[in-house]
């Protein structure tokens, strides 16, 4: 890398801490401008892959599995399911809405799938929300939380699962 932007330290510490860097955060712009250099930097220094699109950036690792990510996708899946069952437009709610912590916890506890969730880190709901607040996947304030744009990577994951299943069914 020939030169570092002035936000270099901030960029590296945010991403290495497992946080999502999201536009319009100014450090996202610096990162995007030196996208290729940073890709190489993270690959060589940490063996991490930098994933960056038009709005979000984050690091992925090939080492081991991350149970917290699994827990989060599980939480999101069941929240979407409950919202859809109650006739709400789940995507608008997730992408634009604000959730009351206590109400959301109650909604999930009423779900027939709570027995799965209660065995995961979601069971300690307050800590769970704080963890993902630190990662910038949601924003927590005064008993409420709101998802950030980072949530779209989990929707993409669901689309990939659905498409893979569809292909599998077609093959049969």
């Amino acid at each position, binding site marked *: 890398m020939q030169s570092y932007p002035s936000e270099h330290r901030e960029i590296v510490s945010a*991403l*290495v*801490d*497992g946080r999502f860097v999201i536009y319009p955060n100014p450090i996202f712009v610096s990162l995007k401008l030196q996208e290729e250099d940073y890709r190489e930097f993270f690959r*060589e*220094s*940490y*063996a*991490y892959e930098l*994933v960056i699109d038009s709005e979000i950036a*984050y*690091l*992925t*690792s*090939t*080492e*081991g*599995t*991350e149970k*917290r*990510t*699994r827990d989060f*996708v*599980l939480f*999101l*899946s*069941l929240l*979407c*399911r409950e919202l*859809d*069952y109650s*006739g709400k*437009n*789940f*995507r608008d709610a997730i992408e634009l809405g604000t959730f009351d912590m206590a109400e959301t916890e109650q909604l999930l506890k009423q779900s027939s*799938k709570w027995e*799965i969730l209660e065995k995961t880190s979601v069971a300690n709901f307050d800590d769970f929300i704080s963890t993902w607040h*630190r*990662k910038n996947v949601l924003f927590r304030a005064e008993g409420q939380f709101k998802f950030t744009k980072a949530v779209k*990577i*989990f*929707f993409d*994951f*669901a*689309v*990939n*699962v*659905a*498409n*893979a*299943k569809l292909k*599998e069914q077609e093959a049969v």
Partner: protein
Amino acid sequence: MSNLTLSGKDILRFLSTHYEFVQSAFAAGKPHFMIDSDKFLRLIHDYNAKNESKISLYRLTSEVKLCRQLSTGEYKLNRNYIPFLEYLFNDFVLNLPETLKNRYQAVFNHFTALKTETSSFRIVLLTQEIINVVEDFLSDIEGQTQRLLRDTEALKVNVGNHSAFSIRIQRANFWIDEYIIPLNAILDKERADSIVNMIIQLQHYANENRLLSDSYELKLEYEKLYACAVNAKSELDKTLSKLTRELLPLLERIKSDSVILNGFYHFVENIDDPKAYIAQLPHLVRRTKSSVTSKAFAAEAEFYIDQFSYLTPEIMFSEAQEDIEWLPDAAYFKEQLIKEDGVKDFYKWCLTSLEEQTENITLSKFFTLSNLLLDEDLVIEYKDEKRYEIKLADATLLMPKIKVYAKLSK
């Protein structure tokens, strides 16, 4: 006593009295408006069981002629009732866009004939026919759009189990491919063969002729045709806007949302068996406080450093050079002094002796020598008050003249 022939009022009264039955028969027969014999008889039986006012198969088939039995045994609703009932229940069956295309073809044929027709009588007939077909077309398209909108809304919330997601995706796909896109093509004014384009041409033609026609009667007919075309144009614009700005995005949205829910469903169902949900979860990095190097790099670096590990650490000191000043040897000079057998001017002697030994005579060198005065073996005689200067490298001294000699005992 009932009349022998049924009037329109009798039919309306029947429909009004047995509204629920007609509605259930209508719903059961959709979309082809055919009902199995058993099912139809059961509908009658169930209805009669709940209502005081009874109906009979004979009255249905022979008097009000709501339906007739086919040779295959099924009952088919009377075609004359269907559009009215669809309107009544606000429940339109989707026609394939081909049906709408046929209407386009009919308007096209009549319009082509109209342009070359010279007989006033035929012109009146053709304009009336065009107006009828256009009205039918508008009514069809209005009903279809309403139906699509309502079904789409229903599709959005209609979920019970996971199969509903797949059904939603299939339906949304089907409606988009089979209805919305072809309807859009029919209504797209950019296309030369679209109905909207023809309505525009019709409007221009009628506008011109309502002013230029020879007879008042023809002017009136063209006036009607013009009004019909203007109305049709505005209705079709509204419909097109509903289709492309509301319905299509909504269906696309339902489709993509259902794909997401479907994916999440498979993920949750296979939560303990990651291989079964095929796609890979994003491996987000965990918060790290430790090394800034990758494991591979760390291992390589360790290997490299190990090669040098047999060397014991070597500590190097660098000594600072001290500048030590030469000082005269007092014992040597004492010996010289005694040899002299008395010195008349001691301080001068000190200076001269030092000058013989070194160049740079400083205070410290001078005093080292002059301190011999304190030696017990020497005697000092001091008489003169006068002093004289002795210049040293770092000072100038004013000294008296002192006589020094060794003790007599020696």
